[in-house]
């Protein structure tokens, strides 16, 4: 959007602001999904007296941070036109390794570094298979999902393993100005991704590869490496989410995320990303995450039976995919 020119008198600034507001495309996906989020909030605040309480809002935003962090990573992969369904397994594996190491006497910092390293390595394996061997990303990450989950079970001997420590209690339940630390981490990550995608050549190349890989290749971009790094980032985000998970639960669980396998994908799709890649904003993903969180929280508050919750979430995915296909997206 064009910035106002001139030496910036108040009047000119005001005109610039109005001009900027006028340039916002109110028919765009971001505005549409934001309106959907507001409508959901209005609905649940009218139907449940607990929904709009500070305690509830802080609770569900804290619970959302794991989903939100993974969604930020998956957004990268999907923006390039790939997908990653192995994130929860990477979370289980990396957090499992971290807790086992700590329980065996390893330094907490070192264990965290190793865990994040493992999540990046898992992403690198996915990325290598998808980018260099051109194996279908759904098949690749489905296979990886099972393999990583299996290793997580092996490492933890299929048990939930507890861990304690100052670091985990600060990250898991600490608050700054009343807001959970994990929420700061999530918002910080989104800000970082936004800056990277909007203001750096790395970000522009991610959009370019997602939008037109042939044109990107002709323009001298290493398309394979961009695809590779997209899945590495997705894996790394799962590792970071694993750290938050262990901090919040106080334990690693090898079955982590099995119930909500496609929640992350749903959130990113809801955020308006094009399934064929190249189109989407990270702020949309954040709104998608919040929509899913509000929906889950609202249904729990209304005591909706879990079976119905699944049906509603499934319906939301289908609706989002339908909207994307109407817009001309869809997997290539």
């Amino acid at each position: 959007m064009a910035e106002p020119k001139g030496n910036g008198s108040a009047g000119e600034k005001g005109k610039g602001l109005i001009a900027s507001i006028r340039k916002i495309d109110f028919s765009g996906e971001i505005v549409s999904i934001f309106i959907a989020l507001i409508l959901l909030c209005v609905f649940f605040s009218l139907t449940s007296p607990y929904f709009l309480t500070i305690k509830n809002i802080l609770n569900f935003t804290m619970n959302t941070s794991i989903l939100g962090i993974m969604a930020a990573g998956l957004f990268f992969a999907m923006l390039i036109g790939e997908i990653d369904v192995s994130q929860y397994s990477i979370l289980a594996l990396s957090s499992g390794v971290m807790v086992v190491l700590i329980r065996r006497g390893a330094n907490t910092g070192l264990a965290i570094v190793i865990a994040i390293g493992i999540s990046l390595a898992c992403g690198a394996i996915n990325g290598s298979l998808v980018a260099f061997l051109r194996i279908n990303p759904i098949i690749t990450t489905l296979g990886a999902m099972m393999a990583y989950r299996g290793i997580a079970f092996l490492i933890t001997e299929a048990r939930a393993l507890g861990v304690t420590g100052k670091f985990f209690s600060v990250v898991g339940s600490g608050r700054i100005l009343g807001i959970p630390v994990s929420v700061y981490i999530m918002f910080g990550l989104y800000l970082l991704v936004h800056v990277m995608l909007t203001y750096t050549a790395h970000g522009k190349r991610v959009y370019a590869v997602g939008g037109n890989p042939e044109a990107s290749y002709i323009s001298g971009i290493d398309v394979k490496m961009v695809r590779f790094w997209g899945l590495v980032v997705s894996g790394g985000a799962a590792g970071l989410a694993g750290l938050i998970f262990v901090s919040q639960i106080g334990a690693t669980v090898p079955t982590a995320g099995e119930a909500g396998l496609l929640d992350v994908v749903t959130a990113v799709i809801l955020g308006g990303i094009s399934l064929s890649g190249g189109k989407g904003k990270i702020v949309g993903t954040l709104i998608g995450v919040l929509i899913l969180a509000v929906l889950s929280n609202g249904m729990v508050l209304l005591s909706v039976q879990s079976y119905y919750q699944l049906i509603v979430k499934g319906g939301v995915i289908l609706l989002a995919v339908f909207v994307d296909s109407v817009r001309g997206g869809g997997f290539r």
Partner: protein
Amino acid sequence: MKTTEQACVLEMRDIHKSFGGLKALDGVNLDLRCGEVLGLVGDNAAGKSTLMKILTGFYRADKGSILLDDSEIHIDSPKVSKRLGIEMVYQNLELCQNMNVYENLFLGREIMRDPVLRFLKRKQMEKQSIAILHKLKIDIREPRKRVDKLSGGQQQAVAIGKVVSFDPKMLILDEPTANLALKEIGKVLDIVLQLKEHGIPAIFISHRLDDVFHVCDRIFVLRGGRRVAVKKTSETTHDEIVRYMFLGSEE
């Protein structure tokens, strides 16, 4: 304006290329002179694309040599071709529709503040985009406009502007007027003439002989993987070129 009688920028000598048993190119010799626009015409499967893909590094010739400014060159990838200053505007391939004009113009060669974090100098890229578009008299005033909001002719103009901005030694324009409305075709041809005025030699591939006669100094006809004629535009006719394309050779 420079004349077509000047020295060769590019020479392709005795180029052969086969795919299995199929001979796509059979000893083709092509030269491109300073400042000229050379029309490359031929029926489907005449070998035009294969010849240009050898020049841009997508294929390797089985036999033959390529000289750029009298020095022999070996092009084994599109990157090498670009590095040597050979730029091609591909048909329907060049632009990212999800990005704006200046992002497309600088894609892969962004102006950055630093080499690690690679923060963009967006203002500078915008300014330079305007200068590039202005130089070629391309009528797009808003470099932040998304490419998919432009007309077909404007998109083609941006694609040409993109490769010109890299200061190429020579250009290859692959069917730049295909799928355009008549008014848009005129605009694209004007840009090609602008390139000629700026002394940038170009190979102009097209099925539209009207366009070829409008902008080219010479016309090179391929048929069945062989050079069948090279004619000065001023010394030939549509009918003669069509005869060479579909019926036979003079060489």
